[in-house]
């Protein structure tokens, strides 16, 4: 670096790469989107006397919380994968990411099953409750689906070796997952709130 003669020497590898900052911007704007939708949920809730409206069952607590637990459990392997990546241990990185991917995919599959179950009982076009219920949950789960695609892409890249670029992608995508997990908790608790 001193060959460039531009003052301060480069710091160690602990500073965030540009890609992480890009992911932070994405998370900032997407978190706002989900916050707005959560606010919509409560706005509509307080405009209605009966919530959920008559004929629509109150959501159950146990199964959705267990399913959410699957997604949250994936946080640990993601975190371990990042550590392995920083230590440039490729096999361990890929292994942990696959463990996470399985948990996250299982979460999404069970969510889809839950939608199918719910749709038999109430539709988005039945009432404002149904409209925001499916839109809010669907928006959160769309972020999970995007995360799965990102992880798949990352695994395909990492299978061919670890580079600085791929490590940056790992940092950015893991940050995306932490944020999506936190947002999904908020969203799930919001749609479960009538049962709380």
């Amino acid at each position, binding site marked *: *670096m001193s060959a*460039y*003669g*531009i*003052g*301060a020497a*480069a*710091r160690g590898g602990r*500073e965030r790469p*540009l890609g992480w*900052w*890009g992911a932070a*911007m*994405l998370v*900032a*704007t*997407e978190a*706002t*989107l989900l*916050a*707005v*939708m959560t606010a*919509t949920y409560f*706005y*509509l809730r307080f*405009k*209605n006397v009966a919530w959920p*409206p008559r004929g629509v069952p109150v959501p159950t607590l146990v199964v959705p919380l267990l399913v959410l637990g699957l997604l949250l459990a994936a946080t640990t392997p993601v975190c371990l994968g990042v550590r392995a990546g920083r230590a440039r241990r490729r096999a361990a990185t890929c292994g942990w990411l696959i463990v996470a991917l399985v948990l996250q995919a299982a979460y999404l599959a069970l969510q889809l099953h839950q939608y199918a179950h719910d749709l038999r009982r109430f539709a*988005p*076009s*039945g*009432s*404002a*409750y*149904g*409209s*925001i219920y499916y*839109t809010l949950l669907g928006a959160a789960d769309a972020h999970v689906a995007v995360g799965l*695609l990102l992880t798949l*892409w990352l695994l395909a890249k990492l299978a061919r070796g670890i*580079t*600085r*670029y*791929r490590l940056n992608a790992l940092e950015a995508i893991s940050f995306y997952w932490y944020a999506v997990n936190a947002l999904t908790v908020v969203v799930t608790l919001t749609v479960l709130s009538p049962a709380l």
Partner: protein
Amino acid sequence: MTPAPPVERLERIWAPRPGVLGWLTTTDHKRIGLLYFWATLVFFGAGGVEALLIRTQLAQPHNHVLGPNAYDQVFTMHGLTMIFWFIIPMTTGAFGNYLIPLMIGARDLAFPRLNALSFWVFAASGVFLYTGLFLGFGPNAGWFDYVPLASRLYDPGRNIEFYTLGLIFNSIASTLTAANFIVSIFKCRAPGMSFNRIPLFCFAFLAASFGLLFALPALSADLVYLFLDRNVGTHFFDPAHGGATLLWQHLFWFFGHPEVYILIVPAFGIATEIIPAFTQRKMIAFPLVAIAELLVVFIGFGVWAHHMFATGIPTVTLVFFAGASAMVVIPSTIQVFAWSTTIFTGLPRFKTPLLFIVGFILFFVAGGLTGIMFIAIPFDQQMTDTYFVVAHFHYIIFGAAVFPIFGGMYYWFPKVTGRMYFERAGQVSFWIIFAGTNLLFFPMHIVGLLGMPRRVYTYPSGLGWTIYNVLETIGGFVTAAGILLLFGNLVVSYFRGPRAEPDPWHGPTLEWSVPSPPPEYNFAVVPTVSSAYPNWDAADRELDRQRLAAGAGVLDEGPEQVVSSFVDGETQEVVRMPHDSPWPILVALCLSAMFAVLAVEKYTVAAFLGGLLVLTLVGWHAKEPEEA
């Protein structure tokens, strides 16, 4: 004189692809800025024609230039075009893209390909919106598109689909640009440019970018709800099924009020560049002005319900929002006093750019005063939906947001083209536009007080409104003539103007330290910075020249760029930047095709195109940057 060998290497590394292909695949922030500029001018022309059509229709009572249906589409399109396809892309897309990297001493933005994607998405969104208009499905429920008027029941055509999808599409472009600006200003500054040395122009764009990043999601959510209500049968806005009509307004204005400041804050930024250059004096109260620029946008997020004083929400809420709105006066006044005191205590040269800034300050104060009147809730309830409101926001949006854009066009013209404009014609154009604008918008105050409602396609005679409407229409055409003179001046200057030196104004910031027009790589040597007005630090610039002669700090081993620390602007690492890529335009094509088929309810095809979009994104990331 032969250029030093490092510069030759830079020329080779950063050389663009030749011809049209070079423009289609460019990732150069200057070229993208120019693309934004030209595209935006086309939309400005369209919005201007719509404005003149409105004024022609209203020139006389019982006029029949436009029927009610055509009038609804034209005034809606005028508002949408001017806000989303002219002012935002002109300030952020054109001015911000071109100037921010030059001002922070960078060779490009943090994400050059994302920047190209932003432009192509923006261009496609405009084509999409205007396709709707030419098919007879132009949005027709006003730019704020209130439900239930915009619901399927009262607006059964496809008009509103072009509104919802066009705006979601447009928001994607704005969000990409905003994120790019924030990361660039945070992370790509020249060595020594600590946070307190970032030019005020960049602070303003930082504020606008944060505004876009956090305000647009509210609009997007609202648009998604409306699209679902109209096409899937959901009930977000339908009180008969538990929905709420006011939900639309809350979310729209939660976006819409920050939006007003997103429009105007870049204008503040342009003013804080032009004023120091033409008074040869640093801005007074630099930290206060920087904070005020950010604070205006921040407070802007807490005032949205002042657009809803007449909707019947509880008085307690109204009073809170009136108080919050009054708070905006504080950062605004700080800036007005800082600008005018800098001019009074400096050595002002009233060249065309500074004239436009003086005009801007006058309009901003006038429009601000009528804005304060609206804080009084009973006054607002009386005046809402009259021409008084139209007068107020045109003083702010045309007088205060667009005047600095015109001033900035003159100010940076020599930098971008390497030619000088004609000063006398420039000053004449200012006076014509200034007189025309006042003639156009001042009578609207009076006619509004007389009770003329907005958004009516015609009005009866005998109410005392006619004379004012005639004056407004004359003012409209005078303004248009002035704007034509402005662009005529710039076009003739481009071909015939005298050659410009690199720094004709003795400007304060780094863009004036490089040749006009700037080379592809912006800076031959990475500049070092020790104040917020680096081009006035002669010793630093001399040091740059010495380092260039010695070949130190040139970064010529590839398209390289410095990444700096967040607060202190210390160099952390050197990264390789992407350079020329076909992927942004391909991704934009997939995305636009997807939105187009959504508008005609072909959901399977849309899903297929979504898959194609994912594939293009994989292609985008196939080639990795070389390890530096």
